[in-house]
């Protein structure tokens, strides 16, 4: 995959078409009345990449996604989704997108297979040599684990089953780019695992995925890259490891010597442990080194940002991406 400085402008046109960014957002701004919700969002997504958009409630995640989906007009900025400005996306463009909506009680009288077959009809004219649209309803139902409910009326489905159906509806047209807004809300752990497998399979088939979630563990598992949106701008952009390394420099080392338990926070765990062994050698038991999780990183970044140190967080993040 091409190496791109996530903040700077990518060298457009120098890469072959297949490497073209699926999403390219430059200085995206959104204002409602006098309230600035997005104050300059920049990021890109490459083909087949899974990008997680994290951020506190009200940070503008949904607004960003809705602009990219073409459901909302932006105030300013350059946005390209599959090479098209979503404000002027036509039906041909729409057919290449998948949107997983948070359903509630729509299509309650429809049966699962009936609805998927119906919605598939709309995608049939948009088949290409590479992509056969739509996804066969029975295969799709199996892929999301609803086979035994295929002939159930949708209003009889449980919350988790409905969410699976939402995902199925989102991918029935075999999208090249998929938007997942809180996809696993209401999933039990097993369903969540199956859903993660599905996302990996889609990503392997070169589907680009942009997802929002509040489950940081999920973001860490699924995403190639994590974006943290706070205060209307992207305050961090990198893999979970990159962010953790950069942000939470303190790792926690725990050990016991002679039955006594010790805890120490250090920015260089390796050096500290080396010294520890030099000092105590075989007396050390129960050694444990805990690097900051994405959750620690996330909370630290958002807190740092919210305490008004935006510039510092951005500067640190710029180092991450170098």
């Amino acid at each position, binding site marked *: 995959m091409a190496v791109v400085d996530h903040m700077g402008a990518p060298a457009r046109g120098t890469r072959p078409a297949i490497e073209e960014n699926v999403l390219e957002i430059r200085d995206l701004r959104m204002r409602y009345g006098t309230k600035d919700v997005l104050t300059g969002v920049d990021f890109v997504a490459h083909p087949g990449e899974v990008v997680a958009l994290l951020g506190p409630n009200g940070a503008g995640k949904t*607004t960003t996604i809705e602009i990219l989906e073409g459901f909302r007009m932006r105030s300013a900025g350059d946005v390209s989704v599959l090479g098209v400005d979503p404000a002027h996306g036509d039906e041909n463009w729409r057919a290449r997108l998948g949107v997983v*909506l948070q359903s509630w009680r729509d299509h309650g*009288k429809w049966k699962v297979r009936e609805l998927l077959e119906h919605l598939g009809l709309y995608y049939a*004219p948009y088949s290409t040599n590479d992509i056969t649209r739509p996804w066969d309803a029975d295969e799709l139902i199996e892929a999301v684990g609803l086979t035994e409910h295929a002939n159930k009326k949708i209003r009889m489905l449980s919350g988790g089953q409905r969410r699976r159906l939402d995902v199925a509806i989102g991918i029935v047209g075999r999208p090249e780019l998929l938007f997942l807004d809180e996809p696993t809300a209401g999933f039990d752990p097993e369903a969540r695992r199956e859903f993660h497998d599905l996302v990996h399979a889609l990503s392997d088939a070169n589907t680009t995925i942009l997802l929002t979630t509040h489950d940081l563990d999920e973001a860490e598992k699924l995403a190639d890259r994590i974006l943290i949106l706070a205060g209307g701008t992207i305050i961090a952009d990198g893999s979970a490891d990159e962010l953790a390394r950069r942000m939470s420099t303190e790792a926690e080392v725990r050990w016991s010597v002679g039955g006594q338990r010790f805890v120490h926070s250090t920015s260089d765990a390796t050096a500290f442990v080396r010294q520890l062994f030099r000092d105590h050698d075989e007396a050390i038991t129960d050694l444990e080194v805990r690097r900051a999780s994405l959750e620690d990183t996330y909370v630290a970044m958002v807190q740092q940002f919210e305490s008004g140190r935006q510039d510092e967080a951005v500067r640190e993040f710029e180092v991450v991406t170098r």
Partner: protein
Amino acid sequence: MNPSMSTVRAGFARGRAEIRQSFTTGQDLWGYFFPTVAFLVVMFFMRGATVPGTNFSLGTRTLPSVMGMGIVMGGLVTLMSQLIVEREDGTLLRAKAVPNGMMGYLIGKIVTVSGMMLIGQVIILVPSLFMLSGISINWFTYVWVVVIGLVACLPIGAVTGSLFSNPRNASVVMMPVMALVATSGIFYPIQSMPDWVQGLAQVFPVYWLGLGMRSAMLPDSMSAVELGESWRHLETLGVLSAWAVVGVLVAPMVLRRMARRESGSSVAARREKAMQRVT
């Protein structure tokens, strides 16, 4: 197959599916049969009475008026309430997320609403043919009145359905519709209304649909008790066409504006509101 052909096909498939579903849903079946039974009972008790000044059965004269009202209720009220409900529950947003989905949805909705309206006509007509005497249907007139009536009423339903986002507010529209029905000579002869009410009623489609249906289903001699002592086909066609033309021009603009505003967060906000209503 090109996209517009397949959209039309998908729209018709959607309409057929929804009509089929309406037969297995208690609420929809109630919607078909409850008003029908109510009207049949009313007409049964009216069958002995006669239209003042004639010896024609009052029940028989009421049947076509009721069927004309059925077109208004089906075309206008059903479409309006389905649009409001399906906007609230996210059906429209789903359609918007699919290529040509909005067009397919709209075609589907027109098929559904028209189909349900026609089914409503059949269920009230068939028992009436056994119960009432003196019905003689001119199918040609019947068809053109139904068609132009639907084309006049559907856009009004689409526009009102687009303007209200809260299902509760639908009753704001229902009141004037009920008032129009009451003053349009469906149940009470329009001649007994004050002049200004008669004039007002003749602006709206309800009166003309009632008149058109009477002209299609009653003997010609019954035109004598109408305003102007005539079926006034030209005026019927004129008023209904005027509504149809205005509607066909205005409805797409209003529908587009409504569709443009649909997004995940607008549906979520309505869901939030609806939840508060429930609790």
